[in-house]
């Protein structure tokens, strides 16, 4: 099952025909679950993600409560059938790390002080994975939080940049992630339609300082496009509700 490294950029285009700074097709729908307080279904390329938010609600056991603010949980989880080789159910080290940094991206943005002693739980399931699941999950979680009516200082929008065949590209898909030189997932706080700060940032691979800086600019442009789609999804949901 050893894989040959394919050429990732041919004639200035990527394997799936995209330009360097082009996102994969994105589909976002808010309010897709009955039981959850807020929810979102999101496709980003071949990724299929579903996010649910529960809360603010009581925290059990009690000693986990914080008397002055809400406690945030974020659980990133992959379905066993979401990847080529069946994944054993339950958290592994990778998903523990992703859950941690994702939670930390949301914590300063959620107005936790409004909900003392309570918990806000964000659960995100990867039903189908195709690179960039952590950023796709952050985008879905963001919409689900808005759908749940959780008060936030802005919205989180996430996208990765990669270096493949020496070239910076936006929103890498599986082959680019597997065979590329570097991968940099970003999440941003967007407020008043402006990117205000970096909420999540990881990186592995090898890039020059200059490439990292350029990558950030590319990611920001991509994030603004995703942000518009997140807004649209939320609008559609409200609109539907009004009509009903």
């Amino acid at each position, binding site marked *: 099952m050893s894989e040959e490294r394919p050429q990732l950029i041919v004639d200035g285009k990527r394997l799936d025909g995209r330009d360097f700074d082009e996102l994969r097709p994105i589909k976002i729908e808010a309010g897709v679950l009955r*039981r959850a307080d807020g929810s979102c279904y999101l496709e980003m390329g071949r990724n299929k993600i*579903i996010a649910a938010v529960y809360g603010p609600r009581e925290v059990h056991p009690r000693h986990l409560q914080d008397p002055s603010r809400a406690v945030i949980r974020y659980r990133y989880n992959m379905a*066993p*059938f979401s990847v080529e080789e*069946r994944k054993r159910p339950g958290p592994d080290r990778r998903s523990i790390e992703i859950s941690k940094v994702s939670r930390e991206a949301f914590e300063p943005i959620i107005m936790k002080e409004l909900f003392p002693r309570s918990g806000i739980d964000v659960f*995100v*399931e990867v039903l189908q994975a195709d690179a960039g699941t952590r950023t796709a999950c952050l985008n879905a979680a963001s919409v689900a939080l808005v759908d749940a009516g959780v008060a936030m200082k802005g919205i989180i929008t996430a996208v990765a940049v990669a270096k493949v065949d020496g070239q910076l590209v936006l929103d890498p898909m599986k082959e680019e992630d597997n065979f590329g030189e570097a991968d940099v997932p970003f999440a941003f706080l967007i407020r008043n339609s402006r990117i205000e700060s970096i909420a999540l940032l990881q990186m592995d691979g090898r890039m020059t300082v200059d490439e990292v800086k350029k990558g950030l600019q590319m990611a920001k442009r991509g994030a603004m496009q995703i942000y518009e789609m997140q807004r649209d999804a939320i609008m559609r949901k409200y609109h539907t509700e009004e009509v009903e």
Partner: protein
Amino acid sequence: MGEDILMDIKRDYVLSRLGDGERIDGRKFDEFRPIEIQTNVISKAEGSALVKIGDTQVVVGVKLQPGEPFPDAPDKGIIITNAELVPLASPTFEPGPPDENSVELARVVDRGIRESEAVDLSKLCIAEGEKVWLIFIDIHALDDDGNLRDASALAAIAAILTATVPAERFDIGNDFPLPVRDLPVSVTSLVIDDKALIDPSRDEISVGEYFMTITTDQEDNIVAMQKSGAYQLSEEKFYELIDVSVAKARELRQLLRDI
């Protein structure tokens, strides 16, 4: 607290309507909510299905890979069924290893498929005593608005029906459809006193988790049964449940034939 009071109100409402011979959503006692089956929803899986029964949603993915046979069945494929009641699907589900409800769900679905011999395991031997196909059936709950069990069973058999054995990927010949011999269908009822509500919704279950599941094959044989819940079942009710379950299963089986 508020949660408990709400449950009490719901329960009283369900019971009062039942007293009038009605279900809260106006369904007949032997009527399922609308059912929707989408197959091939997960391209990474060898077979998959999303089933909605009312607002209840579940995805089942089937993955196949070569593995060692059991010593007492050296020429047969192996089914491994697992259910994840992920906390996304209900405010009452908690993260962590499978609890007794997940285990029971997986085992009841598994029994329906196994005992009806839905999959022809004898066609899934690669090298006798050494290598056979392992079939992982993973049940992934998305939204539990009641009766996850029938939704899971339906999604499992639908996913199996559309599954391909990925022989080429493992260099062992040509891909072929997973050989299916039967279409087991489970029908779950909520037993309340002298009444039985087929396909109970979450609100109806506020009365209590008093379930009876009867799974039948395409010749109306019973292949699996499971009484779950702390209640007593009368003999008469049991006979009645058998008959209605057989009849409803025939209807649901038609949906599978239409895939």
